């Protein structure tokens, strides 16, 4: 992800355009002013990538995790879309279908549906489709396997180089 150079130049209209998502589309990039990062989208449309990131949070919602972790988790699909036309078509079509369902029910695209529960209800309609299965199956690894995510869950990761826990609290429970 790039730095926050573009974020300051965005005007008020652009901010208001993204109603229920903090992610703003600027050319081929996604900008997250609040978290101060940008993501260049190379192979998918930026709208598709924005929807995939929203969808990622709706699939595995953790309120303590910032959007950037979901963006990192989904970035691989943009890369894969560059080398694999079938993947790109599946993702673009999948998002269109999801947006179509959202428009029918709520009159707006998926990413602009206000409530998580309403978006989840749309996802339940497609949860057995290859598109959803692929996104969820990849996400369960690409989200939770980020080392930067682990502290939010208290997980400490690698321990051998620190001598294990023999002197670092393997039996420090006190509340029993």
């Amino acid at each position, binding site marked *: 992800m790039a730095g926050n150079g573009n974020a300051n130049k965005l005007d008020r209209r652009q901010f208001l355009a993204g109603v229920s998502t903090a992610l703003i589309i600027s050319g081929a990039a996604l900008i997250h002013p609040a978290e101060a990062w940008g993501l260049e989208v190379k192979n998918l449309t930026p709208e598709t990538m924005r929807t995939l990131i929203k969808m990622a949070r709706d699939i595995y919602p953790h309120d303590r995790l910032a959007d950037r972790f979901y963006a990192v988790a989904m970035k691989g699909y943009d890369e894969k879309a560059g080398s694999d036309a079938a993947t790109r078509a599946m993702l673009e079509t999948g998002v269109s279908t999801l947006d179509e369902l959202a428009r029918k029910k709520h009159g707006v695209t998926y990413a602009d549906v206000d409530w998580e529960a309403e978006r989840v209800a749309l996802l339940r309609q497609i949860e057995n489709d290859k598109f959803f299965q692929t996104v969820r199956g990849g996400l369960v690894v690409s989200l*939770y396997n980020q080392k930067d995510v682990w502290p939010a*869950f*208290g997980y400490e990761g690698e*321990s051998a180089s620190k001598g*294990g826990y023999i002197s670092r609290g393997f*039996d*420090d429970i006190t509340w*029993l």
Partner: protein
Amino acid sequence: MAAKFNLTDDTIVVIIGSGAGGGTLANELAQRGIKVVILEAGPRHEIEDFVNDEWESFGQLAWKDMRTTAGSWKVHRDFPNLPAWIVKAVGGSTVHWAGASLRFQEHEFKTRTVYGAIQGANLMDWPITLKDLEPYYAKAEDKMSVTRTNGIPGLPGNNNFKVLAAGAAKVGYKQVHTGRMAINSQPRGGRGSCQQIGFCFQGCKSGAKWSTLYTEIPKGEETGKLEVRPESHAARIEHDAAGKATGVVYFDKDGKQQRQKARIVCVAGNSIETPRLLLLSESSRFPNGLANSSGQVGRNYMRHMTGSVYAVFDKPVRMWRGTTMAGIVTDEAANNPQRGFVGGFEIETLSIGLPFMAAFLDPGAWGREFTSALDGYENMSGMWLVGEDMPQESNRVTLDPAAKDKWDLAVANVHFDDHQNDIAMRKYAHKAGSAVYEAVGATRTFPTPPYPSTHNLGTCRMSENPRDGVCNKFGQTHDVRNLFISDGSQFTTGGAENPTLTIVSLAIRQAEYIADEMGKKNI
């Protein structure tokens, strides 16, 4: 020091696989001056190569070659091409096993007699008894430095164990301790003591846990009688006109086909690959696969009744700190049909890291119900439930009619359906396990379904009568005198206990038999 043998040398014993069965057998034979070649499909990673990272380690160690599945088990739906989580590397699954080393109970060698006829179950008494195996259990425990045997103290209990022990005491369980583990609580056998690193499944970074990789195999190599050939994938066992095994065709690390001559062939590829290799070795003389006149090769596939219970508390546990399998409750291990099922089960602590918890807590689940469980990860405690499952003829490893591996060999298809007894036991065990945690204040419990199998058993079972099974009480196949089954495939039934100690004990016993028979020129 390690030997180097000629491909045309037909005086050697060829062992396929280097895990608990193959690795132990190889060293035991080498110590007796017998020449051995191990063909190991996987590469040789040493302790320094292991990584404390679940997915990276999975990529390094796991058997990921194509397999297919069938049947009503949930693994078929959730992990259609990963029926088992076992290792493809020198040391086999002793690289990633947890270390629990329990003897079978007496009745578990004679389940047909004790349990009676159970509909749909292909129960049979083993051709050996606990008494027959006891001297070898003792040798194995000494070799592996099992805690609570040979005067070796138990391991200290970690946080996950303390939660289990407190809950178990509250519900009235009496037999609760930190296990009989092949993990050093003090230096022994040239290995140091446990540093409570965690990541036992990812290869022990301190070497405190017994693995053939850095015990049996180097000891065997030191004799000058053992050669290990990593990245050597056995494709076929050949035989002569008299029906005697003559050698093994394999693909070497460069993908080149080789043929190693042999006086004796021992198969120890774990209970999926072992029957696959026998089936792939069919010939005009053995049209249904080698050593398969009984039709039992690949049948009676067992994976233990398994399940887990994870529980969230209102305060931190940090279960990942220290040994993965840090303690045991054995009160439910006996056969007590009043519970609504035959056989018993063990309750053993288990912890997995956040990445694997996300993948295995409730495979396929998503949304807030699921993620709120993971939000409680730091406050989570975990146990594994492992019990005897019923052998069924239709639970079976066969050759997939369509899928081929990179050598164009038919891959294994694993079909599995739970028996009613397995289902009843799991239901009871999930309740019993949840009760342990609720007794010490769990706010939420998760009865977690089985993972891909780690205990694969029974696909070349031992039998007294050649009509009923594949091998005799020494693992020697009924049909081919110089062909042996040397892994958990031999198990007639599965017992409730983690199988490694029994596999090692059988391998020690088999080595004695092979050396004796070779001396008498019987094979």
